[in-house]
């Protein structure tokens, strides 16, 4: 099965990347964009999806400064 881990900076934790993107968008004519947060996406094929949260705690995410969310999908999808 394919697990998707969505990792984002914790609320309240400074997110320089998100700030940079938020500052850049209006200049490109994209108005009305707020709360930009830049995080990481990790996709993996796992035999046992139940263990993914544990992987996040121990390796994939930095629980100190990041929140994560696990999405399980039946099959991989990597098209646009």
């Amino acid at each position, binding site marked *: 099965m394919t697990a998707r881990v969505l990792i984002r900076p914790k609320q*309240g*934790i*400074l997110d*320089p990347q998100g700030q940079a993107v938020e500052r850049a968008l209006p200049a490109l004519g994209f108005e009305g964009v707020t709360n930009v947060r830049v995080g990481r996406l990790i996709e993996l094929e796992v035999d046992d999806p139940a263990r993914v949260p544990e992987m996040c705690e121990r390796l994939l995410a*930095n629980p100190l*400064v990041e929140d994560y969310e696990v999405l399980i999908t039946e099959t991989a999808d990597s098209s646009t």
Partner: protein
Amino acid sequence: MSTLAAHRELGLTDAEYEGIVDRLGREPNGLELAVFSLMWSEHCAYKHSKKLLRRLPTEGPHVVMGPGENAGAVDVGDGLVAAFKVESHNHPSAVEPFQGAATGVGGILRDVFAIGARPIAILDSLRFGELDSPRSRYLFDWSVQGIGHYGNSIGVATVGGEVAFEPSYEQNCLVNAMCVGLARRDRLIRSAASGPGNPLVLMGARTGRDGIGGASVLASAELGEEDASKRPTVQIGDPFEEKRLLECCLELLDRDSLVALQDLGAAGLSSSASEMASKGEVGLDIDVSTVPLREDDMEPFEIMISESQERMLCVVEPERLQELLEVCERWEVRATQIGEVTDSGRLRILDGDESVGDMPVTALVDDCPLYDLEPEEPAQPIYPDPPVRIAADADAAETLMAVLGAPTVASKRFVFEQYDSMVGSRTVRRPQSADAAVLQLAPDGGHGALAVSIDGNGRRVACDPYTGAVEAVLECALNLACVGAEPLGLTNCLNFGNPEKPHIAWQLTRAVEGLRDACLALGVPVVGGNVSLYNEGGGGPIYPTPIVGMVGRLPDPERVPVSGFTQEGHAIALVGPFAPSLAGSELDKLRGHMSDGLPEVTLERHAEALGALRAAVRTGELVTAHDVSEGGLATALAESCIEGGLGARVDLAPLRETLGHSDRLTALFGEGPGGAVVAGPREVVSALPGAILMGEVGGTSLLIEGDLELEVAALDERFEGAIPAAFA
């Protein structure tokens, strides 16, 4: 909150709390208590170290700014000064190594440009547990990446540093960062606020909940099991923000637009504002409702103590305010007037038009009770013997390989290749190519160069706090002498355990006495530094670790020797009052032994020898100069072979004669201050006063008569491979 219950939570003793009530003439409210608890913390008030620090010599012909300002500064000629300081970020790095180390660099950079100097170099001094521990590998790896991330991104060269691995740092790593800056003498600015009515402007990042309580919680309490609970206070560094802030501040100083400038560090606005007011003997009114926030629901007390990074505070005359805002705009730096200078002598905190805090500045800055240490020499050694890592019957060759492969001795290429060591185009000697980093003052090298070194050996200080501290100063001075530099000033960071324990107090006292005596003997003033106490994890106190950073000047960078051998046939000699002993040596450690005491050092002889070596180097005739430190003479010779890719044939019999004893292992691996390996044309080397000729450069192996012969390729592989191997 009920403040009476709260003060202990915030790390204040009942007596200190009473002192606060006295000075206020009433009970403090929550905000006031929070501010006092930080201003009166060890980190900000130096309450256990201030009296001791007064013993350090701070006067010297070159001193322009001494302790008390954000960084010290020494005159380097041509109307220029070098500003520098070392600071610790130990506990934040133990909690989150990447951000802890990164923000440590960000903080020391701000201390340097806060006095108007452009940072030109960073050095780092790191201590971790042994590399066979996964936690130590993790802390080491991510601290290094954090330092690189910040320094590389902001464009300041990281030109040197040191790393050592000892069991005592397993629970409590040390991350000390030093920054050196350059300024025109007439551009230096101080942090004293003045001129009642002058606007107080906050520049840089928005204020968030970063490091709330960081100073008191992270920096002044022993790390226990509950680290995790402290984690939400982790600060995130943004080098891009600081880069703009740096350029913006330097442009404002070039335009002479500022009255005073101060960085925000530990305890945030509370500390910076009261320091500025105290130095200028004025008062400040701050309206927290004007501070730009990252989270809108912050309490006034949170705003006052937040340790959000990349912020500076300045005082400007009303008629220059507009200009200041325009410069900030151009650099995309947020700038907001958050208050003004008053003549009240008080720090008044407003939330809109409601007063939420009102404290006498002197009470905050000067009235924190200072404590006398109660030093007591421990009856028996307090550190366990390190694990045995070498066979008792290992021969000289096996021993050399073992020593070269010890992570503390081995090449730190893994570290310094992760640092941009050349941005700024000043770096004449990169890491490992000479004993001290050499930075030319002008692009053409024509105006001479600075030499910088940072050193300390906690294990030797643990063996003998006084002599160990003396040796740290001597090693820095020797590193400088090896590139022909004369020391101008010194900074230091005192990393110790809990000073309320008598044996730690004893270590601290003896170490400071050692620093003092060495500085006096060499005529090097202490212009600044930092103290980090309570470095104790579950495993007990760290080795006492005074770190010394020294800045010197040399006339001609074209003449600076390298640490490697460069030419077949060059004569090799040992110079300096080198009296090797296995006590406290790397070999002693590999054998699982922790010595009690180190051989005494005669400072006068070292001062003389340093002058002689410096003079010899300055003639430009010496091609190779490399100091003998961890691992002893055999290691120093091996390093010069490896660095130059050339072999050497030497005989240590003349040395053993001079030493008056015949122990081969002591001559090979014994350690002690003051020795340097030099090489060059025979007539030059043999003419050196007191030089002991050992042999000459040549061949593909290092041959030490009657002791060992090893291929340079094999030495190289061991030396360069040891640390990468730990990560394989």
